[in-house]
């Protein structure tokens, strides 16, 4: 299957649906019926929103100001949870540092790898579909299986990674037991699934007008130059989308850490969500856990906002040229 040109779909996003029509001041009966049906149709979402999102969010804010073991009534402690976390918790800063380290290295690295692969696959190559499938396959493996597989891959003596390193004369570390190597190991593992990003990038590359390359060709641009002057700028919206999704996802890393390291050794790989899970569901510190959730939320929002703030400088939108 070849990737269909996204821009070739007729009328995408241009069909003037009824969404924008302003409601009239006085509603005729059939419009009242339509409105009533609208609320009826969206009622599953409304109920779900109130019961599973808004209600829990408000409760969560309240809980973050309490001490609560989920068995006895919550006890109001004001800002104590937040103050303890930020000033007194023995591991909180280490955990946030680990999480940021993981996110800041694994996201750009993963994006670079997927961009590099997508660019190779965008060339005129034979067996393109086969290569694309092989590169994409790891992305389909459920994360639990990935973690279990990499427990073997990282095995210090007989694991294939250290066997490969020993071929070039390097004695590989005990990846998951070594405080210095456990985070690079988790990042390496995330890179194995980086092929997942190539599909969207390839679709984006397919949508780049060929005339741009023809013009570059006439100017005598090399393939490297064509990549940096045509492909990359044209792809920045997709790259930006991958960046945002990557930031949000990597700050919430859980199963890998929980299964592979349990946060160890010496909390060197403990991350925000596994810590939250431990506090809430192992030690029953529900209030403390809620405070961690809110701090994590603020951190994710801050990084996302940072990405948006810089996007004006490097993300290139077609409409900017046309207008």
């Amino acid at each position, binding site marked *: 299957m070849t990737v269909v040109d996204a821009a070739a779909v007729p009328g995408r*996003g241009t069909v003037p649906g009824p969404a924008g029509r302003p*409601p009239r001041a006085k509603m005729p009966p059939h419009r009242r019926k339509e409105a009533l049906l609208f609320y009826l149709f969206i009622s599953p979402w409304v109920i*779900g929103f109130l019961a599973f999102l808004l209600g829990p969010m408000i409760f969560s804010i309240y809980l973050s100001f309490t001490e609560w073991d989920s068995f006895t009534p919550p006890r109001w402690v004001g800002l104590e949870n937040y103050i303890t976390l930020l000033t007194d918790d023995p591991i909180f800063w280490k955990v946030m540092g680990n999480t940021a380290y993981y996110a800041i290295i694994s996201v750009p690295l993963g994006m670079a790898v997927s961009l590099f692969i997508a660019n190779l*696959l965008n060339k005129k190559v034979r067996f393109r579909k086969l290569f694309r499938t092989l590169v994409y396959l790891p992305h389909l493996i459920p994360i639990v299986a990935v973690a279990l597989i990499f427990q073997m891959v990282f095995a210090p003596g007989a694991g294939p990674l250290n066997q490969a390193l020993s071929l070039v004369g390097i004695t590989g570390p005990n990846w998951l037991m070594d405080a210095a190597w456990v985070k690079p190991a988790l990042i390496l593992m995330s890179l194995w699934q980086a092929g997942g990003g190539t599909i969207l990038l390839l679709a984006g590359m397919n949508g780049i007008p060929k005339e741009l*390359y023809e013009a570059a060709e006439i100017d005598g641009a090399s393939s490297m130059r064509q990549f940096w002057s045509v492909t990359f700028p044209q792809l920045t919206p997709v790259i930006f989308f991958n960046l945002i999704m990557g930031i949000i996802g990597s700050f919430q890393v859980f199963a890998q850490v929980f299964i592979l390291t349990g946060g160890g050794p010496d909390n060197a790989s403990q991350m925000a969500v596994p810590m939250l899970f431990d506090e809430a569901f192992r030690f029953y510190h529900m209030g403390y856990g809620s405070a961690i*959730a809110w701090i994590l939320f603020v951190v994710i929002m801050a990084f996302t906002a940072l990405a948006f703030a810089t996007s004006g400088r490097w993300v290139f939108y077609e409409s900017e040229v046309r207008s």
Partner: protein
Amino acid sequence: MSSRKPVMHAFRSGPGTYGLLVILSAIFMVPLVFVISIALSSDSTVSTGQLTILPRDWRFDNFVRIFQTSLPVGSFIVNSVIISVTSAIGQVLSSSLVGYAFARLRAPGKKALFLIVIATMMIPAQITMIPQFWIFSELGWVDTFLPLIVPQFFSNAFNIFLVRQFVTRIPYEMDEAASIDGLGYFGIYARLVLPLMAPILIAIAIFTLTAAWGDFMGPLIYINSEDKMPLALGVQYLTSTSQELQTPPWNLIMVGSIFLSLPMIIIYYFGQRYMYEMNLSAGSAGVK
């Protein structure tokens, strides 16, 4: 080479391109080949730590023996199927209804409500995790499938968004023609729009199925009994409950990982064109 139009530099491939692609594909494949090799190893090979990338034994009976451990692996698989299929049905039903309403029906306050839908995509699941646990334990739903399944029947923001984007691309004239033919709004939804929505609904079904099948944290929080565990949690359980203080049965764990992964690969193979549909719907606003 061929005398057709010369390929532009950006698309020109040489031995280097193939070399890189072969090396990269090989690196990506090594862990998977390794999984198969361990899955086929005998117990003694695994327990003495003799792991090789290419299989040394061919113990296909491991694929039967995994069902004979002290853990109910058969139930794990059945549970996973129940949870993920029900979740997919719930998401398809609810998000098609809600998404259609946001695309087609007019009502005061719709714009504001849609903004709320979009805004909820930003809320990470961790925020609601603890209160939801409280709600479900008050309802007595802990250690049942209900906390994993029921929320799926109330749709989620991303799926509503996908359906809405998709339906806006269906020409409105079709609705008008149907309404002249005497179909009401529900008739238009059920008889006209729903069949046209099939590609995006299949994409949502696949997406939900995959997410529910692979979900680890949900079952970890809510499921305690072994016979109610889905495979994603159960396979992990295999590592922690080896009876004696010996190395976990890595050959069987890798068989379990294959059981966990293979359905996802098969679903992707048959569903990839629908997944593309989803990228398209998301991309029509998500990327820009």
